[in-house]
């Protein structure tokens, strides 16, 4: 059988697996473009977890109660754990954590733009839990059924923990809303800042999303950006009402005919600028990651050298 024929037969097998909604596993044959798309998506997700540690980590040493400090520290620790699972899932596709991190530092791979916005008050810890983790969950729950096995299984666990974080964030805001006027104002100001960037987390409108169609066909992605965004808005409006905060969109209203809330699109020019590197914290986030990596290089080298010497001693 010629190479071309063999590839055609492998590709047909692959397509059948996808069609049956079965999972592709690391040792299975897969089209190169499927592999590349997955690496891009899973790496971007892993980087988001790791960069996402920074804006919330910013408040660990200033958390205003011992209980909140423990909750926040545990949450940021969970994010490091999520990064680990996802880098591991990525490694099953033939790339190493170090290679991926290098690409992140070099700006060749992206992370979620939301983390390029600063955290300016303790309420932001709650808002990130409620809106940002909430948006992340909308994006991620469908991925538990994604076609690539290791990614789907990692997402299963991550989604459970993210749901917990979202409820913790909401609970922090709810508690603050029952506190002083200054605390209520702090919550409102935070929601005002994070609403639009949260809407942007679903990516550009479908008509401008170049990768959506192929990713949906391969079941790497399971819903369109606009569908997920709508779902998020529909979910958030009653939650905002329960909290007693106003979402900063004068056009936000229930549309009986559609059975959904109508809402204003975020500023997509701002989104593109932030994606391209001009957000308020892009440079800072990468510089922080790079510094940690550079400062830790001698430790990682020591661990490698020590493990090697132990193996040599043993043999």
């Amino acid at each position: 059988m010629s190479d071309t024929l063999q590839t055609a037969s492998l590709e047909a097998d692959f397509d059948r697996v996808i069609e049956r909604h079965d999972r592709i596993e690391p040792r299975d044959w897969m089209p190169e473009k499927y592999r590349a798309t997955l690496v891009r998506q899973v790496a971007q997700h892993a980087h988001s977890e790791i960069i996402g540690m920074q804006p919330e980590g910013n408040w660990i040493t200033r958390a205003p109660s011992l209980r909140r400090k423990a909750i926040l520290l545990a949450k940021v620790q969970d994010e490091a754990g999520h990064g680990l699972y996802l880098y591991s899932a990525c490694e099953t596709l033939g790339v190493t954590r170090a290679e991926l991190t290098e690409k992140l530092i070099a700006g060749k791979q992206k992370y979620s733009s939301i983390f390029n916005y600063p955290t300016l008050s303790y309420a932001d810890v709650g808002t990130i839990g409620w809106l940002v983790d909430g948006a992340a969950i909308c994006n991620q729950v469908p991925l538990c059924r994604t076609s690539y096995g290791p990614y789907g299984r990692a997402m299963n666990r991550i989604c459970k923990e993210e749901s917990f974080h979202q409820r913790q964030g909401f609970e922090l805001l709810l508690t603050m809303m029952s506190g002083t006027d200054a605390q209520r104002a702090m919550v409102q100001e935070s929601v005002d800042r994070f609403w639009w960037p949260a809407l942007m987390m679903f990516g550009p409108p479908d008509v401008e999303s170049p990768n959506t169609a192929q990713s949906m066909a391969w079941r790497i992605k399971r819903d369109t950006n606009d569908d997920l965004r709508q779902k998020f808005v529909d979910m958030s409006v009653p939650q905002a009402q329960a909290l007693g905060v106003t979402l900063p969109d004068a056009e936000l209203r229930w549309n009986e005919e559609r059975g959904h809330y109508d809402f204003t699109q975020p500023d997509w020019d701002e989104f593109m600028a932030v994606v391209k590197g001009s957000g308020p914290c892009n440079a800072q986030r990468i510089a922080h990651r790079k510094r940690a990596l550079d400062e830790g290089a001698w430790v990682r080298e020591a661990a490698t050298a020590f493990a090697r010497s132990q193996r040599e001693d043993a043999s």
Partner: protein
Amino acid sequence: MDDLDLDHESVYDGLLGGDSSQWAFGTDFEDPLAGVDTMIPAGVDGAALAAYCLMLGDDALIYAHRLSEWTSNAPDLEDDIALANIALDLLGQARLLLARAAAADASVVPQMPEGSPVPPEDALAFFRDEHAFRNMGYVEALNGDFAVTIVRLLLFSSHRLALLQRLATSVDPVLSAIAAKGVKEVTYHRDYAGRWFVTLAGGTEESRRRLVAGLRTVWPTYAELSRSTQVETLASEQRFGVDPAVLTEEVDAVVDHVLAMAALERPDLPPSGTGPMGRIGRHTEEMGHLLAEMQVVARAHPLGKW
């Protein structure tokens, strides 16, 4: 989701096991000692018990603060997770110990404005002034590089493990339960630090050089861990606490063992300082900055709910 909720509340699991015949620990997040009989045992001086709990609680709180500064800054993700874990354990110990201090002697708790919902352990952590903190200067020091951090953690956790092991037999059932739970945690902290200590010693030339430098930085402060105050002497006499001076030999043996595994000698450096300064409220210059950061949000909202 229920299994997850349990995961996150497991901080209190250790308190539920063991000898719980005389009291039951609550698992309510709001009050760390909910459901616990906080009556002071016969023969124990409440003020001394509170002062002693503040010492151990403040050590844990301030050291947790320092270790939490590693978050997103560690050499690898695994160490980010491990150091956060250690900080979380110490934070949990701090919360229980400060709550115990407040329950033993309410007069140690700073007075809050009327109507303030701030619980006593938070009032102690966030509304006390620097001179009222009773932690050792040892835990205030800046982290330094990873080698300094590992050396400091090794010495601290070796000492604290020996201390908690004895404290598990305290006549105060609350302290005894907190200690029993802490033993499991700090055993891991010591293992983590010990493994890295040996790894850095046997890794590369640079890691060995940095480890030796770290050892020389931290070593002069090691003696502070075993300096006793009158409070600790009294705690030992009344059998609710441990005099750190009696731990010296045991802790030295552990440290010497790790040094031997790393093929290193004890540095020939004299101890710094003369008395138990931090324990009587005289701190290092770093402490003010640390507290300014730790307390800033809480102090801006004395009537706030979090």
